[in-house]
């Protein structure tokens, strides 16, 4: 067991455009990462990067978070992010941790095709999204080989996201729709990128996923890092189990 306090560890979390992409309680994910670091004595610096904050140096980030927004707001963000495309790509290719939710997930792909327009994405992930006629809305339960507990959350998206071969999905859909409603898979994991349609307070109910993200960031920054101190996850696990059991038979 490492003693994190002694190591004076410090993690910089950059929340991209919370003023624009903040549709479904994305704050919950930031608060969860922050608290789970702080409760272990690791300093968490949260930088809210707004649309006025153009000089931000993404290289200083240990975790980048991109949330979801309405179509209108997403288009604005897309324009701004295209200017940072290379910077984000470099960050990801060298193992930078990035968590993208909903609109943020779609933005990482090649494009988002709606009935009216084709919004160009960052093309960092080999995925693309077509708008469907209906919204895929509801609770979701995923099974992932990386975690012993299911991933539970809520989705609300019109986009159908198709992922190409080189990317692994985040999980197999046990309940809900996922990437396309038909593929049986949800989200993407690529290097240290985690992208998903499960929006808002995803991490509080999925402590294993949150700790995985934190571990990736800490390992990358501090090669000697030995692992996170365990926390009391009773409430988190109960909340997770409640959703999982309600929508699926015991996994």
């Amino acid at each position, binding site marked *: 067991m490492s003693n994190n306090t002694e190591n004076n560890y410090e993690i910089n979390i950059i929340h991209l455009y919370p003023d624009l992409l903040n549709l*479904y*309680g994305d704050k*919950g994910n930031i608060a969860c990462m922050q608290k789970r670091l702080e409760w272990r004595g690791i300093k968490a610096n949260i930088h809210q990067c707004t649309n006025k904050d153009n000089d931000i140096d993404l290289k200083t980030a240990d975790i980048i978070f991109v949330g979801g927004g309405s179509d209108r707001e997403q288009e604005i963000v897309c324009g701004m992010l295209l200017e940072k495309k290379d910077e984000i790509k470099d960050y990801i290719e060298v193992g930078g941790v990035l968590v993208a939710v909903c609109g943020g997930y779609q933005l990482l792909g090649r494009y988002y095709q709606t009935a009216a327009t084709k919004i160009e994405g960052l093309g960092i992930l080999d995925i693309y999204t077509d708008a469907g006629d209906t*919204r895929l809305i509801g609770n979701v339960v995923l099974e992932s080989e990386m975690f012993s507990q299911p991933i539970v959350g*809520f989705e609300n998206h019109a986009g159908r996201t198709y992922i190409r071969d080189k990317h692994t999905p985040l999980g197999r859909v046990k309940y809900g729709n996922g990437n396309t409603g038909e593929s049986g898979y949800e989200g993407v994991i690529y290097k240290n990128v985690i992208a998903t349609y499960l929006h808002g*307070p995803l991490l509080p109910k999925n402590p294993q996923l949150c700790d995985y993200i934190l571990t990736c960031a800490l390992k990358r920054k501090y090669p000697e890092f030995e692992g996170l101190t365990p926390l009391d996850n009773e*409430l988190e696990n109960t909340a997770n189990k409640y959703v999982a059991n309600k929508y699926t038979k015991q996994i």
Partner: protein
Amino acid sequence: MRKLLAVWAAKLASVAGRIVGKKSSSTPGVLALKICPNLISLLKKNITKGVIVTCGTNGKTTTNNLLNTALQKCGYKTICNNLGANMIGGIATTFAQACNIFGTFKADYAVLEIDEASARRVFKHIKPDYMLITNLFRDQLDRYGEIDITVDFLNEAIDMTDRVKLILNGDDPLTAQFGEGREAYYFGISEQVLPQVDETKEGRFCAKCGEEQEYNYFHYSQLGDYYCPHCGNKRPNIDFPATKVDLSESMKFSVDGREIDVNYRGFYNIYNILAVYSALNVMGIDTSNFNSVLSGYRPQIGRMELIPLGGKPCILNLAKNPAGFNQAIQTVLLDKRKKDVIVAINDLANDGRDVSWLWDVDFDKFSGANLSTLTTTGIRLYDISLRFKYSDMKIDNITSDMKSALKKCVDNPESEVCYVLVNYTALYPTQTTMLGLQKELGSNEIVALDKVGGERNVK
């Protein structure tokens, strides 16, 4: 003949519903519409003076019912869906209920609150002469998709009307935009009242050009004196401005040189009262007795409703979305007494299945609310508990038993007041539990009255 059958069926269904103790008032109307699909348009000729419709995310029911009370006090005969069933079925129920056994009725006004997404369906049957829109906030997103969709729905509905007079919240950029190119009257609070805190602002982006707008001052959420530096869109000229707002004792403000003074709680009630005042004026109704209308009006259940339990004041409040909850929290913060807080969160269809909005509520502020105990309950009790845990707040009781939770608060010698904040489907069961417990515990008299922010309207 079909009309008569439909009316009778609806009446029978209502009676049956009451016998089995169901409070839903939309089912009889749904049944009536199955028998006679054009029931509402057949019955609308019984309304002689006009139809006024209220839409908007928050304050709809309060505004609609207060407007109804005001019209009745002025001697008008009205029909009103005052139980809050506001989709097409609820409207049909209201019309059928108003009928005598011959399937007809006489009324001066129909006073209807209508769900934003249902307005375009209802307007196929009955077109309003006046339409009041209170505000638009993020609400039940999994039902509506996004707020932009709600705007589209309402625009579509308004376009179906002929020569409707709009009464709009001019402080809300999302609502004020409906007035563009239409006959519209605006109400608003025309001075800075509250501290300028940062909270969820849904409509911060200009409804016209999408750029970020700025504020000379704002009240809460996106409401305030806004302007867009980019395209020049700004808060419209306010026809009914509230000024001289004073919330220190009761609630006071001035409009048209008239002082309004009521024993209501919650800043948002200024908007509700102002909306009604504006609507009455636009309708050409005499408002000289407005203060007496207000003092005689009892807000419907769960709007900061005082239910004393065993000598302790317990206050039940419904909040459905971040804006509503933030307003409730602000009201709780104004009460300086030592308090228990119970928060109940459900996720049934009428609540919205998605509970992620809990993270858009400033629950952290409870840490400065002089809490004695904090209790979480409801179907999604673990989600709300996590919300508090990640604000570093201690939860004293996580339980699915509202009655035992209430009892603990009543028995808590340390607290002077108990606030019960619930979302939509938790409201009626909670009120039933509270009233049951009130009977069980006997005395309704409040024992300890506090001077600061104390409840004065003891029954």
